[in-house]
C-alpha cells in the first residue's frame, strides 16, 4: 500500500505523516478484528489523502493529467482493499458435513456351514459319468463350491436343478455379508442379484424355487456387526458426533457395498411383500439416507443412490404419501439439524416424482424443526423465516443460510401443496429481505453466503 501512495509525497509542501514504523513483532496470529482495524485506518488515511489531493489539484491545475492517473491508482487501491475485506470475510470456514455413522466393528461371525455337505449339489459330484474325470478330493469340497460360486457356475447349477436349497442360500448370503474375501463377496452378491431377477421374470418353463429368503432382521444384524450405531437414532440429535475432515476412525468392512446393493434388489423383488413389512422398508430408507452422511462412504454414492431409488419405488401407490411423510419426519427428528441436513436433502437426488416429493418433505420437516414450527403450516414457516431480521447483529446468519437452502428445496420440489401462489409470494419477499438487507460490505460471518444465495435464488425464481 505504501509503495502505491509513494509517488505522491514529493508533491506536497510539507512531508506527509507516514504510518508509524512497523509494529513490533506480533506474538499472536493476526485476527480478523486487527485486519479490519488496519484496513479501516488505511481507508481513512486514503480518504484524507483524497481530500488533500483535491485541494492540491485546485492549486495546481496544470498537473491535472498526472493527478488523474494517480486517482485511478488510488481507486484501484480502494478496490483492492475492498476485495481483501471480502477475502477475510470469505475465509470463514463453512463447517464440514459428516457424522460418524459407523463405530467399531463387532467380530464378524465365523463362517461354517457343515450342512453344505448334505446338499443335493454334492450328490452330483458322484455322477458316474463324470466322477472319474473330476477326481475330487472330498475333503476340499467347500473349496470346490467356492470356486463354482466365484466363477459364476453356481447360478447355472441352481437353475439346472430348479431350486436353491436353504444351505446354499444361507451360505452365499453369509459370504456376501461377512466374508473378507472380495471375490467371494462380490460373486455371492451377483448370485443373489441374478436369483432375484430370474424369479422376477420367471415363467412356467423356467422356475426356480428358493428355500430360504433373508429377512429384515438378517440385514439389520449385519449392519450391527459392521458397527452401525443404531443408537444414532435414539440419541438426541444434538449429541451426534460430528466428524472433522481428517480424523482416523474405524469404519464398516468392504461388505457394506454388498449390503447396500443387496438392499436395492431385495426390496424390489417380487418376494418383497413376504420378506419385509412397509414399516421395515421405511426403516431401511432412513438407514440408507443416514449412510449418505458418512464421509467414508462418499465413494459409494452411486450405489447408495440406486438403492434409495429402488426402496422408494417399492412402496405401493396407495401407501406412498403416508410413508413419504413418515420417512421425512423420522429423518428430520433423528439426524442433526445443522449443515448435515443440507447434505441429506441434496442426496435425495432422483429425478422421479417420488424422489422429489421425499426431498421436498424432508426439507420441510427439517425447516420446521429448526424454526420450531409445525410442518403442516407452510405459510407460518415462511412468515417466521421472513421475520428473521438479517440486519440484526444477533441474527444467526449460518442458520439463515441453512433455512434458505431448505426452503428452496421444499418449495421448488413441492408438488402437493394447494396454495402455491401465496407461498411463492411469501418466498420472494423473504429472498428480497435477505438480498437487500445485507449489504455487500457486511462483515459478519456467512453474510456473503446468505446474500449471494438469496440473490441467486431470487434471480432464478424471476427467470422462471
Amino acid at each position: 500500500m505504501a509503495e502505491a501512495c509513494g509517488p505522491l509525497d514529493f508533491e506536497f509542501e510539507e512531508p506527509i505523516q507516514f504510518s508509524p514504523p512497523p509494529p513490533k513483532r506480533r506474538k499472536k496470529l493476526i485476527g480478523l478484528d486487527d485486519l479490519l482495524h488496519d484496513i479501516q485506518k488505511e481507508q481513512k488515511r486514503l480518504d484524507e489523502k483524497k481530500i488533500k489531493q483535491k485541494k492540491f489539484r485546485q492549486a495546481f491545475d496544470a498537473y491535472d493529467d498526472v493527478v488523474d492517473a494517480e486517482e485511478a491508482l488510488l481507486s484501484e487501491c480502494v478496490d483492492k482493499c475492498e476485495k481483501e475485506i471480502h477475502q477475510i470475510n470469505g475465509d470463514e470456514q463453512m463447517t464440514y458435513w459428516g457424522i460418524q455413522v459407523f463405530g467399531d466393528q463387532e467380530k464378524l461371525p465365523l463362517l461354517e456351514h457343515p450342512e453344505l455337505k448334505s446338499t443335493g449339489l454334492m450328490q452330483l459330484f458322484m455322477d458316474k459319468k463324470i466322477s472319474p474325470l473330476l477326481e475330487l478330493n472330498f475333503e476340499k469340497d467347500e473349496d470346490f463350491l467356492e470356486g463354482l460360486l466365484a466363477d459364476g457356475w453356481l447360478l447355472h447349477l441352481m437353475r439346472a436343478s430348479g431350486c436353491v436349497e436353504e444351505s446354499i442360500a444361507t451360505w452365499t448370503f453369509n459370504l456376501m455379508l461377512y466374508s473378507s474375501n472380495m471375490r467371494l463377496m462380490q460373486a455371492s452378491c451377483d448370485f443373489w442379484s441374478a436369483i432375484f431377477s430370474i424369479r422376477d421374470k420367471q415363467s412356467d418353463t423356467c422356475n426356480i424355487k428358493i428355500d430360504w429368503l433373508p429377512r429384515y432382521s438378517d440385514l439389520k444384524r449385519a449392519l450391527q456387526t459392521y458397527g452401525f450405531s443404531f443408537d444414532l437414532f435414539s440419541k438426541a440429535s444434538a449429541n451426534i458426533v460430528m466428524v472433522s475432515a481428517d480424523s482416523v476412525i474405524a469404519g464398516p468392512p468392504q461388505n457394506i457395498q454388498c449390503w447396500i446393493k443387496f438392499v436395492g434388489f431385495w426390496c424390489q423383488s417380487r418376494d418383497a411383500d413376504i420378506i419385509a413389512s412397509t414399516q421395515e422398508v421405511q426403516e431401511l430408507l432412513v438407514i440408507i439416507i443416514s449412510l449418505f452422511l458418512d464421509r467414508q462412504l462418499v465413494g459409494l454414492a452411486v450405489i447408495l443412490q440406486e438403492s434409495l431409488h429402488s426402496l422408494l419405488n417399492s412402496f405401493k401407490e396407495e401407501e406412498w404419501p403416508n410413508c413419504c411423510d413418515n420417512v421425512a419426519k423420522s429423518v428430520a427428528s433423528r439426524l442433526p439439524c445443522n449443515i448435515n441436513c443440507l447434505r441429506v436433502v441434496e442426496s435425495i437426488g432422483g429425478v422421479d416424482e417420488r424422489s422429489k416429493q421425499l426431498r421436498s418433505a424432508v426439507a420441510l420437516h427439517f425447516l420446521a424443526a429448526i424454526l420450531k414450527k409445525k410442518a403442516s403450516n407452510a405459510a407460518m414457516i415462511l412468515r417466521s423465516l421472513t421475520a428473521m431480521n438479517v440486519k440484526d447483529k444477533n441474527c444467526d446468519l449460518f442458520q439463515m443460510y441453512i433455512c434458505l437452502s431448505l426452503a428452496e428445496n421444499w418449495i421448488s420440489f413441492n408438488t402437493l401443496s394447494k396454495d402455491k401462489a401465496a407461498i411463492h409470494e411469501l418466498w420472494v419477499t423473504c429472498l428480497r429481505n435477505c438480498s437487500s438487507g445485507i449489504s455487500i460490505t457486511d462483515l459478519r460471518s456467512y453474510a456473503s453466503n446468505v446474500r449471494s444465495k438469496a440473490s441467486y435464488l431470487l434471480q432464478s425464481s424471476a427467470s422462471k
Partner: protein
Amino acid sequence: MKRRTRIGGDGGTQGFEENTLALLDTSGFNASKVSHHLDDDRLAFLEAVRTTSLITDKGNAPTRKMLEAIFHILIDADSLDLVIQSYKLLVELDKRFPQLYLSEGEQSDSSSPKVSTFIMVEEAWSPFTFTMDGHDKKWDATNHSRSLVDSSGFHTLIKEIADVSVEMKSEAVDIGFMKKMLLLQYLVTVLEGDFWPRNSTYEGRISLFHCDGFNETMVDAYVLAENLDWTILRESLLSMLLGSRKITYKGLIKSSLSAMGNLSQSTVSSEEDSCSDKPQGEELHEVDRVIALALPEVEKSTCNVLKKFIIMIMELDSSKRTADQHGLTTRADGVRTPAVEIILDELINDGDVLSSFLKVFDPKWRLEIIVQYFQKYITKNSVRTRSSASAINTENFDGLLKYLSNSKRTKSIIKKITTEAIQLLLAYGFQAYVMLLHNESEGFSDMMEDVKSNSAVAVCEDLISAFTCLRREDPNTGILCCGKQALITAAATISNLRSI
C-alpha cells in the same frame, strides 16, 4: 439424419448460464489458499445445474460452457466427493439430453416400420475433440478448449489404467486412479450414446434394402439413402477415434484388453494385500479408507465399460463389412484389421489374457471368439458339403464340441493348442452357451437360434465326451478346475432335463 437445435431462444438460457456459472466465479480468490472454498463453490454449482436441468420438470439443457465447467471439475478436482458428483451429473445429463437420439413416432409409412432416423442436436457439447484428417473443420473451430480429450489422450488414459491396476498395492491407490476410471466410464458412455443410434439406423436401412430392394423404383431411392447411411457411421465419434492417425489402433485394443484383464484380477489381489496388512495398520487414514471402500465397485464398472467399448468396435467392424459388401466404403475409410483378429492374436500369445478375457467377456462375443480361435487350428477339408453326414460344421459351438469328441482329431489339435488352453476355451465356451440358453444377456436374438438349434442335452453330452477324449489323449494333464466346474454343470443340466 436430421439436425435439431435444442434451445429456442438465447435470451432465457443466457441468464441461466450466467447465473449458474457465477457460483463458480472465484476469480477474486486465491484458489490454493482456500481450496475448501473452491470445493464448496463447485459442489454448489453442480447442485444448481442438477436442480435446474434434471430435477425441474421443464429443465433446460445446460449450455456448452456449463458442461465444460462440469467436465473440468471431473478432471481437475481433488476431492472424491466432487469427482463422483461431477461424474454422476455428466452421465445423467447425457442420458437426459442425448446428443443423438432416434426419433420415434414419426413412422407415418406403415410399410417401413423398421426405419428410424436419428436426430442430432446441433449445438451439443462433446468431451472429445478430434478431426478426421480435416474432415469436419467445425470441430476444430468450436472445441478448442484445453481440457477436451483427443484420440491420443484417450489411448493414454486406457494405458495408464492398465498400468496402475497391474502394479497396484492397496495403499498406493490414490484419487487420480479413481478419477481416470470414472473419466473413462464417462467417455465410453458418450461414445456409446453416439454410436448405437447411428448403428441401428444403419442396420435398419440395410435390412430394408434387403427386403424391398428388388422393387426397381425403390432401389434408386435407397441407393442414394444408403450412401448417406454409411457416412452416418463413418462420422461417428468411435469411427473417428479409431481412424485417427495419432494412435495405433492395434495398440489401443491391446491396452484395452490388458486393462480389462488387470482390473478383473486386481480386486482379488488388492483384497489379499489388505488382508495381510490388517494386523499392522488396521486403521487406515480416512482418505485411504474412503478410496479403498469405493475402489472395487469402480473397478468392476470400469471393466464392464471396457468390455462395452470392445464390443462397440466389433459391431462397427461388422457394419463396415456389410458396407464393404455393398460397395459403400471409399478409400477415405482406410483399412483396418478387424478387432476380432487382434484380440485372437493377443489371446493366442498370452495365456493370462486368455483366462481373464474368457472369464469376463460377454457371452455372445465370447462364443464367437472361441469358435474362431479353434477355426485357426482346425484343418479344413478340401470341400465341405453341408449335406453329407460326416462333415461337421465347426462354425458354431456345438459343432465344435462334436468335432472334438473324436480321439483322432483331439490328438491332432493338442499338438497345436495346449490342453490347458483347450480346457479353458471349452469350459468358458460352455458357460457362455448356458448363459445364452437362458437368455441372460439381452438383445442378441440372432445368436439365439443358433444356440437353440441343438438340444441342450446333446451339447452337454458332447462336452463331457470332448473332455473324456482330452483326458484320454493327454493323461498327464489333469482336468483343470474350470473344466470340472463345466462338467458338473453339464451333468446337472442333463439330469435335470432328463427328469422332466
